């Protein structure tokens, strides 16, 4: 994993000191809220319904054990004993006091963490595939280029005041787990016919009020040229992106209004200029230096099959279910990727207590080469667990309510904080997720339903990714009362698609029944082996709509 060098350390320490002074001046009255607000937002501090909220960056969703332990410590010391993992692979604390945040940031910095790039109109924290470096079939570890982008983008002077926020995601696998086509820039690490590694770049994806799937801008940018290409995209956006209307300020609108062809032309033109200057060509030594941080851990050599692992499944049906749902094949023989669902039945999606975070940190240290990953679906991953150890890991997870065997199933929902916490919300998201998970609590029924992604947002900002849920739910406000609008057919993977709205919204009382109707419609109509999304894509909206509004 990447370790800070002296520059990173100094950068973060200076920033904390600067913020300490800004907080002191705000509290003393020397700064007004208008002056202070942009400063606190640049440090990840929001004001929500009940308190301040601090969003901490977890670059490309990768954590060391000591970092996870620090997140637990912060939850305990500065918050109310828990944190919320988000769809941006970050963690949010819901209750920190403003005057304590500088101390909190000091403690975070001691484990090479911060809250920079988690807010404001800058290039945000880069996200990536949670299985990076562990899954078979990767072109290369996507965290290498993610880290290069992180270093280039942090405090980039030209891109500190963009028209709006800017999100970049990276994958290096044919199965996209990072939702790259729903980002301002989505990058696929690929190999060309000559065997060279480079990047396919998609631009202009996003959710929110006006959702778009990104357009492929280029098929292949050579490795050393990626930053030049990204700089070209950013420069075009910074110059041409709209600043007159925040709803139209994201690059997706620019791409849409300019047209894909013309956008490609202006980006290529800018790219040619930057490339000619050679200023942003990444030196091979630097690529090698960063790559070395992501070298595979020292795996033990072990047979592909483990008798201990097989026997444990034969002996314990709950463990067998856990393996079936949450354990994924590793590229290294004798190892597995273990997913930890943060969606216990009736729980709050993405929340983990300080004690749970400590347990996961210990497990990572002991059994997963010191690594934990955060997923954009609000779960955690132990990426490198020996098959022989999976049962031991499972037993510990189970004693801490962390072994729900529901990955990718109907109860593994994304839900944003919604009106229970969020200042921008129209309706609550979490209670709905809880009710749906309780309605479908029976795991056998969940397995029968199969992969089904429900995603819930409490407002049109779409932090809960409702546009790309197989079933998406959007909270709307009608005169102070909560209603829920359903969309169908969205997808966040390599077949990214924006869902279609079914029709009029449902009340809080009716929405869970409506979800049940959709599920039974699917199970009635499905052909052999079809998932919900496959059936929907085959039969279309009409049969679902008919049953829903019967």
């Amino acid at each position, binding site marked *: 994993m990447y370790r800070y060098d002296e520059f990173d350390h100094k950068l973060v320490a200076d920033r904390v000191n600067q913020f300490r002074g800004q907080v002191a001046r*705000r*509290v003393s*009255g020397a700064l*007004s*809220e208008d002056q202070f607000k942009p400063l606190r937002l640049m440090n990840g501090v929001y*004001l*929500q*319904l*009940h*308190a*301040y909220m601090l969003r901490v960056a977890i670059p490309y969703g990768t954590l060391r054990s000591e970092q996870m332990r620090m997140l637990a410590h912060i939850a305990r010391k500065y918050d*109310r004993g828990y944190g919320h993992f988000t769809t941006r692979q970050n963690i949010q604390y819901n*209750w920190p*006091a*403003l*005057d304590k945040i500088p101390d909190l940031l000091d403690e975070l910095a001691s484990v090479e963490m911060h809250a920079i790039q988690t807010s404001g109109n800058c290039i945000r924290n880069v996200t990536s595939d949670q299985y990076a470096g562990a899954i078979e079939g990767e072109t290369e570890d996507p965290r290498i280029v993610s880290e290069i982008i992180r270093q280039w983008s942090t405090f980039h002077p030209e891109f500190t005041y963009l028209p709006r926020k800017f999100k970049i995601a990276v994958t290096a696998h044919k199965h996209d787990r990072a939702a790259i086509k729903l980002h301002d820039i989505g990058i696929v690490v690929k190999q060309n016919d000559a065997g060279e590694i480079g990047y396919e770049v998609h631009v202009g994806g996003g959710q929110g009020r006006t959702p778009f799937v990104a357009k492929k801008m280029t098929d292949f940018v050579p490795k050393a040229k990626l930053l030049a290409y990204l700089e070209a995209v950013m420069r075009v956006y910074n110059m041409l992106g709209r600043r007159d209307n925040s709803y139209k300020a994201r690059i997706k609108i620019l791409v849409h209004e300019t047209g894909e062809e013309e956008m490609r032309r202006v980006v290529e033109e800018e790219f040619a200029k930057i490339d000619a200057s050679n200023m942003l060509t990444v030196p091979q030594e630097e690529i090698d230096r960063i790559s070395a941080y992501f070298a595979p851990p020292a795996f033990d050599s072990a047979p592909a099959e483990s008798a201990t692992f097989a026997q444990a499944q034969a002996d314990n049906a709950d463990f067998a279910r856990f393996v079936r749902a949450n354990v994924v094949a590793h590229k290294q023989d004798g190892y597995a990727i273990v997913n930890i669902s943060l969606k216990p039945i009736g729980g*709050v999606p993405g929340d983990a207590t300080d004690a749970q975070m400590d347990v996961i940190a210990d497990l990572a240290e002991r059994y997963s080469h010191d690594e934990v990953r955060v997923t954009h679906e609000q779960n955690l991953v132990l990426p490198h667990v020996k098959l022989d150890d999976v049962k031991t890991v499972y037993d510990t997870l189970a004693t801490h309510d962390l072994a729900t065997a529901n990955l990718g199933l109907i109860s593994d929902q994304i839900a944003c904080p919604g*009106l*229970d*916490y969020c*200042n*921008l*919300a*129209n*309706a*609550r998201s*979490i*209670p709905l997720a*809880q009710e749906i998970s309780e309605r479908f609590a029976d795991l056998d029924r969940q397995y029968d339903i199969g992969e089904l992604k429900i995603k819930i947002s409490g*407002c049109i900002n779409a932090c809960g990714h409702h546009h790309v849920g197989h079933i998406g739910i959007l909270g709307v*406000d009608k*005169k*102070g*009362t*909560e209603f829920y609008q359903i969309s169908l057919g969205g997808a966040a993977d390599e077949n990214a698609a924006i869902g279609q709205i079914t029709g009029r919204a449902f009340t809080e009382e009716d929405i869970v029944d409506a979800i049940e109707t959709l599920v039974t419609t699917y199970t009635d109509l499905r052909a052999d082996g079809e998932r919900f999304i496959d059936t929907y894509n085959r039969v279309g909206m009409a049969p679902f709509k008919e049953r829903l509004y019967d």
Partner: protein
Amino acid sequence: MAQHAAKGARFQAVTANRLSDGEVVYFSADNCWVESFTDADIADGAEAADALLARAMPDDFEAHVLEPYLFEVLEADNFYKPASVRETIRAAGPTVRLDLGKQAEVKAE
């Protein structure tokens, strides 16, 4: 922030978040910021509401609170409650964590 004061609301109160810790506070009849909605001053009618907001925002208000605003309150049998779900949640705490927020403090008393 779709659920602020409704046009035509009869009863209104003023709320904000406290600067030091973000706690939800209400402006009281004693001209100070209090933590409980039950201690909030309630204005009857648009003029009284404007006057209440003006009292809550003297020159130095920013030294204590952030972004004060009016919100609608409903009355029944001399008992007031926030009209919207949003303000009901702000007055109590997250509906999914009854152990947190003001609702928890009330329970603990």
